[in-house]
C-alpha cells in the first residue's frame, strides 16, 4: 500500500486498474480526459491487461459499454456533462438491460451557456435512469468508490450499472493524498466478474433487451429494476462495512459530521461538503450546535439514513449545487419527500442554491446560511429558497454586459 498525491482523475484511473477492468470504451471530454489518457498509457506500457477503444460519441460509448457488459466482461468508462447527456438515451437503456458496470462522471455545469466548471445538474439528470449513484468528496473516496461500485453493481441482488461522481476541477484536477491499496487485497475484495448467466455465447442462445408490448409486462420489468436499485441500500451498507474492515476507511451511505448533538445541520453532496465541514468547525468554536450530513449514495436514495440522522434536529440548510428550472434544488425536494409526515423527524428545511458552474461558496456564506436557518427555526417557517449571489457579483456581471453591449447601464451610474 502506498500513499501518493493524486488528482481525482488519477484516482479514478487507479480504481479501474485495481478492479482489473477488461474493457474501457472511451471518449474525451473536459474535465475527464486525464482518466482515459492515464489508462491508455498503462495499457500501452503493459501495466494493464485491458482493451480500450475510442468510440465516436458518448452515445456510442455507452452502447458499447452496456453491450460488452451484457457479453460478460468487466467494463469501465468515464464522461461528463454534455457527454453524459448525449448518452442519456443509452443510460436508461443499458440499465434496463441489467448490465452491471461502472461509469465515472466528472460533473460539470450544463450548456447553455456552455462552461467547463462543476456543478451537479449533469449527474442528477441521470437520477431516474436506473444507474445507481455514489458521490465523492475527496480523491481518496474516488478511488475507493470505484472499487465499492464494482461490488455493488455486480451483486446478484442489484445487477445495475453505477455512476461514481466527482466534481470537475475541485477533485478531477486537484491533488490530494490517496492511499493506493494493495493489489492482492483488492483482488480478493472485488473478485472476478461473474456474468451470472447474462452473456453471449454460442452454447446458450439468448435474445437480450427485447421489445415488450403491453403495460403489464413493461411495468413488471421497470418495477423489478426499481426493486433492484432499492436493494442497493442494504448491499451498499454490507460492502462498505467489509471495506472498512479490510481497508480501514468508512464510506457510509450518509456521512455524518458532528451531528449527534447538533440542532442545525447542513446537507450537501460532493466535494464542497468539506467546506461545510470547515464552516462547522468554525461555528462550533463559536458555540453553535451544528453538523453536516453528506449523502454519498444518492440512488438509491438513503431515506432511512436521513430520517435516523435528522431525528430530533430542528433546522436543516440544504445546499444544492444544481437547479431544476422552475422548481429549485433537487436535493431539497428529495429530502423533503423523505421526511414528510414523519412525526419523529420534522426539522424546518431551508433551501439554498449555489456553486453553479463552479461558483465558490465562501465561509461567510456558510455562516450566514446557518444564521438564516436558525432564524427559520425560531420563526417556525422556512423562507423562500435563496439563490446564492452577491452585490459584488452582480456588479461584475453588469460590467461584462456593458462590454457585450447587452446592458448599457452599469450599476449605480445614471445614463
Amino acid at each position: 500500500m502506498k500513499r501518493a498525491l493524486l488528482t481525482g482523475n488519477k484516482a479514478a484511473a487507479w480504481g479501474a486498474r485495481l478492479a482489473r477492468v477488461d474493457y474501457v470504451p472511451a471518449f474525451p471530454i473536459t474535465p475527464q480526459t486525464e482518466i482515459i489518457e492515464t489508462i491508455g498509457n498503462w495499457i500501452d506500457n503493459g501495466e494493464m491487461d485491458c482493451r480500450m477503444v475510442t468510440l465516436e460519441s458518448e452515445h456510442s460509448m455507452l452502447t458499447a459499454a452496456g453491450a460488452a457488459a451484457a457479453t460478460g466482461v468487466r467494463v469501465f468508462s468515464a464522461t461528463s456533462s454534455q457527454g453524459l447527456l448525449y448518452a442519456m438515451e443509452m443510460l436508461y437503456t443499458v440499465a434496463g438491460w441489467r448490465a452491471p458496470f461502472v461509469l465515472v462522471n466528472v460533473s460539470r455545469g450544463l450548456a447553455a451557456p456552455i462552461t467547463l466548471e462543476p456543478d451537479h445538474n449533469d449527474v442528477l439528470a441521470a437520477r431516474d435512469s436506473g444507474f445507481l449513484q455514489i458521490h465523492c468528496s475527496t480523491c481518496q473516496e474516488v478511488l475507493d468508490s470505484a472499487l465499492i461500485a464494482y461490488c455493488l453493481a455486480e451483486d446478484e441482488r442489484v445487477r445495475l450499472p453505477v455512476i461514481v461522481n466527482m466534481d470537475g476541477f475541485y477533485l478531477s484536477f486537484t491533488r490530494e493524498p490517496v492511499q493506493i491499496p494493495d493489489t492482492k487485497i483488492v483482488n480478493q475484495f472485488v473478485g472476478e466478474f461473474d456474468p451470472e448467466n447474462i452473456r453471449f455465447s454460442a452454447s446458450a442462445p439468448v435474445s437480450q433487451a427485447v421489445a415488450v408490448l403491453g403495460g403489464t409486462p413493461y411495468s413488471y420489468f421497470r418495477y423489478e429494476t426499481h426493486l433492484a436499485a432499492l436493494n442497493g441500500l442494504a448491499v451498499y451498507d454490507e460492502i462498505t462495512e467489509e471495506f472498512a474492515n479490510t481497508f480501514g476507511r468508512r464510506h457510509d451511505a450518509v456521512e455524518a459530521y458532528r451531528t449527534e448533538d447538533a440542532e442545525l445541520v447542513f446537507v450537501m453532496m460532493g466535494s464542497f461538503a468539506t467546506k461545510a465541514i470547515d464552516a462547522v468547525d468554525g461555528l462550533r468554536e463559536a458555540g453553535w450546535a451544528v453538523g453536516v450530513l453528506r449523502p454519498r449514495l444518492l440512488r438509491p436514495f438513503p431515506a432511512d439514513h436521513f430520517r435516523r440522522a435528522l431525528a430530533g434536529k430542528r433546522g436543516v440548510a440544504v445546499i444544492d449545487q444544481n437547479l431544476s428550472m422552475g422548481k429549485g434544488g433537487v436535493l431539497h425536494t428529495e429530502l423533503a419527500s423523505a421526511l414528510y409526515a414523519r412525526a419523529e423527524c420534522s426539522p424546518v428545511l431551508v433551501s439554498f442554491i449555489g456553486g453553479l458552474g463552479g461558483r465558490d461558496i465562501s465561509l461567510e456564506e456558510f455562516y450566514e446560511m446557518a444564521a438564516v436557518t436558525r432564524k427559520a427555526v425560531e420563526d417556525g417557517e422556512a423562507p423562500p429558497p435563496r439563490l446564492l449571489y452577491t452585490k459584488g457579483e452582480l456588479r461584475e456581471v453588469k460590467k461584462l454586459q456593458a462590454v457585450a453591449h447587452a446592458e448599457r447601464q452599469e450599476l449605480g451610474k445614471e445614463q
Partner: protein
Amino acid sequence: MNETKFRRKKDLPSTHLLGTGTPMCAGCGGLEAIHQIYDILGENTVFVNAAGCMTMLSVYPFTPFRGSWLYTAMASAPAGAQGVRDGLDVLLHKQRIESKEDLQVVVLTGDGSAYGMGLSATSSAIERGLDFLYICYDNEGYGNTGQQYSAATPHGARTATSKGPRGFPGYKKDLFAIWAAHRPAYVATVVGAEPLDLARKIEKAKSLKGPRLIIALSPCPTGWHYDPGESVEIGKMAVKTGVWPLKEYVDGKVAHTKVPQQRPPVEEYLKRQGRFSHLFHPERNEVLLQEIQARVDGYWEGVI
C-alpha cells in the same frame, strides 16, 4: 466467385433456421432477405439491432432466433456490435471462454438507421476495422412508423410525408459508395428475389474478416402499396430494369454480379407499386418518368 458452394439453385439451403411466428407483415421483403441470410450465417451469431421494423422480430417472450440477439438503439447498433465483439475478444484472449463459444457479430438495421442516424456509428466502426457484418434491410423509408421518407427514399416516391403530386423531391443517397469510400473488407447489394446471388455474397462476406456491409433491397407491401404476393416479382423487376444494381466492392474494386441486358423500361417496375401511382394516374407524368429512366440509363452507361 470461383469456389462457391452455391453454384446452382439446388445448392441453396433446404432447411430454414429463422423461426416462424414473427409479427412482420405478410410478404415482407426484409424478412425474405433475412431468412435467406440467416440460413447461411447460422446460429453462431449475435444479431445487434437498431430501431426499425425488425425491432419487432423479438417481442418478449418470443424470438425467432436460434442464435443470439441484442436490441440497442437507432443510432448506435454498430457501437453495440463493437462492445459485443470486444467483449468476446477479451473473453477469448483471457481464456474465460473456449473458442467454440465465439459468435459472429451481425448488425441489423433498416435504411432509416443505415442511411441516416446510424451513419456516424457505422463510419466509425469501419474506420476502427471492426470485425463484423452489417445487414441493412432497405425498404426505402421509415417503415415501422408508417413509411415516412428517409434518406433512402427514391426520387418521386409517395410516402406519408411526401404526398404531393410529384412525390419525394429528394434523391436516394448512395450508401454503397459512402460505405465503399471507407475501404472496408466488403460491401455488396443483394435482394431476396435473387437468392443465388445473395447466397454467394453472404458466403463470401462470411469468409472474410473486418467490416463487411450488405444492403438488401426490401420490397415492402405495406409501404410501397402492392399485394404481398408480388414481393419477389417486384424484387426481380428492380434488378431487371436496372433500378437495383447487384454489385460488390472488394479489394478496392467495384464489380457487378449481374448486368441486366435489354433492360425493360423503369416504368415496368414503378407501375406495380401504389407509391408511384401518381406517375401514371390520373395522367402520365412523362417528365418525371423520363427523369427516372435517364438516371438509371446514366448509371448503367457508366458501368458498361
